[in-house]
């Protein structure tokens, strides 16, 4: 999967983060502006977090098809990011319609039932009433959405791992799971997985986890299970 960040500023940040992990990876996963010409079928919307784009970058490398996917960091966070759907559909689909929108957001301290219900409520506000959940796993689910004459698939990926002891579930749950599997160090869990991960970053142990995740597809698939499924859906 090739990524195209739809903002210069954000694109530079993502490239910078990935470059710190592996210099070569940047050319491999990101596409230059010049080669973009109305051929975007799918868009990934990061509705939360600082490290979600690293996870997406790592998974793009492992999903090695050549499909071009747009990447945006929404200023509207979590459920509110669903409000962006009409903007994406009216502006990004002039010549070739967008087919899939993938939202990635944190579970935080909400139950999955609450998140499901809030997402559904917001989708019904934005899309026509005949929206339908077509696939459901707890942290990965897809809706069919109609908006005017347009039909689109909405893929939701909720960050969080039950096995990680944290007050708020986020992308860092997944990174800590990888650190545990790699036995990087004894992890002293703080209140949230984010705080714990930041501590590992300060101890310069996080880079090792990222590098290993880039090299080991099986590990990445296991750790980012719901992300892998969601992104595989748009890749094939």
């Amino acid at each position: 999967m090739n990524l195209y960040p739809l903002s210069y500023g954000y694109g530079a940040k993502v490239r910078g983060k990935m470059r710190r992990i592996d210099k070569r990876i940047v050319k491999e996963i990101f596409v230059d502006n010049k080669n973009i010409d109305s051929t975007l079928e799918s868009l990934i919307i990061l509705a939360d977090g600082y490290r979600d784009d690293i996870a997406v970058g790592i998974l793009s490398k492992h999903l090695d098809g050549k499909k071009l996917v747009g990447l945006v960091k929404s200023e509207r966070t979590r459920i509110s990011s669903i409000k962006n759907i009409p903007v994406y559909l009216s502006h990004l689909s002039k010549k070739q319609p967008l087919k899939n929108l993938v939202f990635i957001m944190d579970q935080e301290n909400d139950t999955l039932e609450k998140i499901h219900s809030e997402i559904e409520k917001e989708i019904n506000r934005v899309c026509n009433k005949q929206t339908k959940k077509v696939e459901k796993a707890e942290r990965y689910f897809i809706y069919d959405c109609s908006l005017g004459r347009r039909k689109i698939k909405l893929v939701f990926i909720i960050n969080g791992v039950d096995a990680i002891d944290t007050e708020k579930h986020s992308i860092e749950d997944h990174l800590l799971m990888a650190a545990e599997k790699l036995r990087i160090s004894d992890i002293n869990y703080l209140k949230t997985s984010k705080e714990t991960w930041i501590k590992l970053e300060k101890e310069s142990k996080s880079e090792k986890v990222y590098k290993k995740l880039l090299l080991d597809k099986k590990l990445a698939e296991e750790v980012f299970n719901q992300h892998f499924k969601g992104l595989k859906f748009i890749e094939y």
Partner: protein
Amino acid sequence: MIRNLKIRNFRGIKEGEIELDNLTIILGGNNAGKTAILESLFLLPNPFREVPYGALNTPLTTIHEIHKTLDSSGWAFFIYKYDSKTKAEIYWKSKSDNAERNLIMIPSGNSLFFTTKDINKFPSRSNTRAGNLNITYFGFADLSDTNLGLPSSQNKNILLAPNSLLISSEIIKFAERYMYTNWVTIANTKTPVEVARDISKYIWEDLVNITIEPYLGGKLSIFGLAKDGSRIRLGDLGSGAQIYIISKIIHEMYDPEILLWDDIEAHMNPKLLSRISEWFAELVEKGKQVIVTTHSLEAANMISSFNSNASILLLKLKDGILESKKMKSEELEELSLAGIDVRTAEGILL
């Protein structure tokens, strides 16, 4: 006011059409045709008329200066891919009627001949042949030299379209000579005092007037006169301040119907840019048209925030074909909230 512009084979644009508003902010990447659009609008009224840039006293010589490269000269660069068998065409429609008018540039021999549907407006016309074509022209420019020619100097005074003035940081210094030549007239208006007071809000110097006086060795210079009586040469002020002072003065003197400003953010601090944005809003309220180009979203947002009817025109130029998308500032804001920067997404948005 010009509301529609169609360009064929002019500079890097093989084909393109855009819609213009009272205030249009043109956004686009490098080499997207932004400057070519402004230059076409600068030429339209009459490529041979007098403009306030000193030695660069016509739109033709002004544009020539902007694109001068090493020793090369002449106006062959007006024709798409320098193709001597192609003619460059600019068509426009004004807001007041739906009639399409044009300016055509036809190469023949070593010259580029200028003609138009409204050729009868020119008191003096000449004929020539380009291949099988008979051309009646009102002026010509050399393809590979700096010569310009008119059948009669009276042709300079004819306006085919609303008069326009191009501002660009690359040519603004040439207006100093125009200010010098016309200083008596300029000094007898309120403009120098107003501009000095205006710029003082945005720089540390407290200026009360603009003057032309002797500098060291007795040679003349343009000065900002400070409240305490001291003087600072215009060239010693920051570039943004110089551009603003000169632009305001020549604009007041030349009084164009259309103000064209290339790369508005160049050398401009946001505070000064905010003042310029307000100035544009004042001009539009007076019925003038303003068209600016920029790479900066911040500048586009700032200029449009002073005028709710401003349009933002996103451009893309691929293989010479110009595509555009007209947006309002609210749409730009919506896109930004959704994580999309129009300058990055142009390939997909257009």
